[in-house]
């Protein structure tokens, strides 16, 4: 197995994630796309870890997973708040911050 196959897979996933973040308007879906990107990063980390035969990458992957979980918790709370106040989970409606 060459290193690049993992890296390019990760890159593709990352870009799909980027597309999702940009094109989706439902808050939950945006969060999911962010998860896609985080996963891509994780694949990179693990691939490098395997390439270098070092634990560092795996340790960082664990940290990323942890932080992703925290992020989803807070993110969903925010989406819930948006839904509660605007009666829609769509982020397009969040315009109060506009000057």
């Amino acid at each position, binding site marked *: 197995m*060459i290193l690049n196959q993992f890296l390019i897979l990760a*890159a593709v*996933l990352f870009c799909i994630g980027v597309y999702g973040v940009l094109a989706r308007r439902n808050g*939950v879906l945006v969060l999911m796309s962010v998860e896609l990107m985080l996963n891509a990063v994780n694949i990179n980390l693990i691939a490098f870890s*395997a390439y270098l035969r*070092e634990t560092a990458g795996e340790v960082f992957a664990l940290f990323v997973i*942890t*932080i992703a979980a925290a992020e989803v918790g807070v993110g969903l709370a925010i989406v819930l708040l948006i839904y*509660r106040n605007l009666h829609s989970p769509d982020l397009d409606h969040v315009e109060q911050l506009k000057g």
Partner: protein
Amino acid sequence: MIVQNIFFWVLALAMVLGAIGVVRSQNVVHAALYLVVVMAGAAAQYILLAAEFVAWVQVIIYIGAVIILFLFGIMLTRAPMGGDTKLDNDQRWPAAVVSVFLAGVLGALLIDAFGKKEIVISGAKGEQLLQVGKAGHLADSIFTAYVVPFEVVSILLLAALVGAVVIARRD
């Protein structure tokens, strides 16, 4: 190492299709289920890379908790049963352009930087790789070299927990 490669490509294909499903599906719940495919595929890739412990952490945290949270959020925000056409905004084409462009740049960069560098999984080096993925090694490095980040992450988790509760609460 043709066998691992076959596994890789099958998994990779499933993951990419799943990822496209996540961003293109017109049903929120389906999107979440596609995300499960991507997550499970990633876990399988980790196993392929001998990162066994991380793989199961991925399963337990992502599939066991994060996806459930997502489904929870979706059902609490009233997922419609049928397709919902209003899931996308009107930046679809610009977004596609951006991501394709990004993919091109990244791909070129990666090929240029790493070329055909191999991940060695046979022989003595392979043995070493297997050892790296073991929970014991991981634990050793987390609790020695990375103990400070570990503690910071713990505090972050706690803060996120409290934060989520505070945000979701309405007083």
